[in-house]
């Protein structure tokens, strides 16, 4: 069996990527299982999805604790302990990272235990689609290549899964083309199948009764959500070009999270620790004084229409 775990940020397409991989394996006659982990996940928040592929029926269920392949859709997740990207990785695990760095550079930076391979999917999507968009097809195609599936079945799986999501026909065709290009481009590290490694059975704890004053979750602080930083959700950051700003307040008025404040001189100040990168301010700025910059070293990558 091969167990694959996808990590991404909500909206990036980790769940769909796992479905594409599962469907492609199914089309080739394998038994496949795929499931995302659901909770209070939101656009930009860390999410995970799991695929299992085998020749015989799969009895294992639930989370993939010891993956053979880990697909990381956003390199910043490696630094986020809450995302638990590195759980259960050993030296045989293949780790794919969506990153502009090479595998050696990435491993030098992070000293991951697994065998690393990288490809810059975000940049590819940006160039090919001309705007930021989900990278599910790309991620799914790369995973298909790493586990040894055929290009044809990946192409068909992308079409089926994206059609399910209601994507436009033209968008599906583009995703297929770019997915196949990534399929060919990813530096190959082959994944070795292993025996199923089920979770140890969970011990069920009998809840004890507490009176509501003790048993109900209570928050006694005021406004402490500031302690939780959501800046890591971004793939693009809004950046101010001060010369162009006319001080109109629109970015401040429309920011849903209230992370933009105005100085006395009517210039916006962005709280990057909490900005989720929705780009509303970039879209709304009448003088193009706010531009979106990809979250990495380098120039401005994307501009709203």
């Amino acid at each position, binding site marked *: 069996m091969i167990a694959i775990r996808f990590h991404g940020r*909500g909206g990036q397409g980790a769940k769909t990527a796992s479905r594409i991989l599962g469907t492609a394996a199914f089309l080739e006659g394998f038994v496949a299982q795929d499931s995302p982990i659901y909770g209070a996940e*939101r656009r930009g928040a860390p999410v995970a999805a799991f695929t299992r592929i085998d020749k015989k029926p799969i009895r294992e269920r639930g989370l993939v604790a010891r993956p053979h392949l880990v697909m990381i859709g956003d390199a910043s997740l490696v630094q986020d302990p809450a995302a638990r990207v590195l759980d259960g990785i050993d030296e045989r695990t293949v780790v794919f990272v969506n990153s502009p760095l090479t595998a050696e550079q990435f491993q030098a930076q992070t000293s991951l235990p697994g065998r690393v391979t990288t490809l810059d999917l975000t940049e590819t999507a940006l160039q090919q689609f001309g705007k930021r968009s989900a990278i599910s097809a790309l991620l799914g195609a790369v995973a298909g290549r790493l586990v040894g599936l055929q290009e044809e079945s990946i192409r068909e799986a992308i079409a089926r899964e994206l059609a399910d999501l*209601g994507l436009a026909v033209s968008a599906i065709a583009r995703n297929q083309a770019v997915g196949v290009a990534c399929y060919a481009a990813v530096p190959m590290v082959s994944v070795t199948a292993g025996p199923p490694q089920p979770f140890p059975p969970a011990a069920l704890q009998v809840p004890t009764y507490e009176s509501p004053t003790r048993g109900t979750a209570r*928050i006694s602080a005021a406004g402490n*959500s*500031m302690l939780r930083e959501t800046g890591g959700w971004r793939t693009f950051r809004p950046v101010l070009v001060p010369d162009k700003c006319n001080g109109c307040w629109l970015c401040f008025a*429309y*920011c849903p999270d209230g992370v933009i404040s105005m100085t006395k001189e009517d210039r916006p100040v962005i709280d990057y620790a909490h900005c989720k990168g929705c780009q509303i301010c970039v879209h709304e700025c009448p003088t193009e004084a706010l531009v979106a910059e990809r979250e990495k070293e380098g120039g401005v990558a994307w501009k709203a229409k």
Partner: protein
Amino acid sequence: MTWQRETFKKIKQIPREEHVLPGTALCAGCGGLEALRLAAKVLGDDVIYVNAAGCFTMLAAYPFTPFKGSWLYTTMGSAPAGAQGVRDALDVLIAKGRLPERENLKVVVLGGDGSTYDMALSSTSGAITRNLDFYYFCYDNEAYGNTGAQLSSATPYGARTTTSPCSLQHPSGTMQEKKDIFEIWRAHKPPYIATVAPRYPLDLEEKFSRAAQFTGPKLFLALAACPTGWLYDPGETPEVAKLAVETGLWPLKEAVNGAVTHTYIPRRRPVEEYLKLQGRFRHLFEPTRQDEVIRHIQARVDSYWQGIS
């Protein structure tokens, strides 16, 4: 006579202070949060929010809260009942002198459209009938968004949700018409009802500040453009919210003691412009264009605006 804003005339009159702090786990680009943040600028910090289960559950996800005031969590169907309890407790404590008058709080219900249009309809009706002094803030994203966009009775005809997909039998996706909750509320004759859209911040701020003069139920229906459920890029939230109003699909209006005034008369761009922006309506254009459905939506809007100016 055209409706005039009295307090909020310029965008720079929007208060600088934030009352819904950052760090919530709501989606990037959430239209509901955009509206709540603006509303809270008028409501202030002396507020107790009574939150029905829904997307806004993520506002004060344990152990963090974005509010300086209080927040209480209820089931989807019982937020107005919870508000009644809180209001009564405050009134009793103040009457008995156990709580000083200056510590009085505004009671604000937060509910999504699933709660407002479906599950909490009876408890809202009860609260309005009892003339409960509270605010009701409905963030309407036209589906059960927190669980991945299932059909609610706020979902408009022609939209696709996970439980009303476009299929051979039902090519339009959703077949029902959006429930007119504004009129259901209005039938109860509360002192103040208004619809708002965050893309019109001054209109929104004005309505919240105007509502403060009324004792009794003050109900707000806020358009919550939803990038996750409506399938568009989060950066386009204000654009979608703007077109919802400009096409006439989301009328901005208020009802003071039952008398309706439209606070903004749109030029009524074709609904197609609004529909085209969103993935949930894509099946109306691809692979084959469903002119019949688009015409139907346009006709509904046209008939709504007949005679309104």
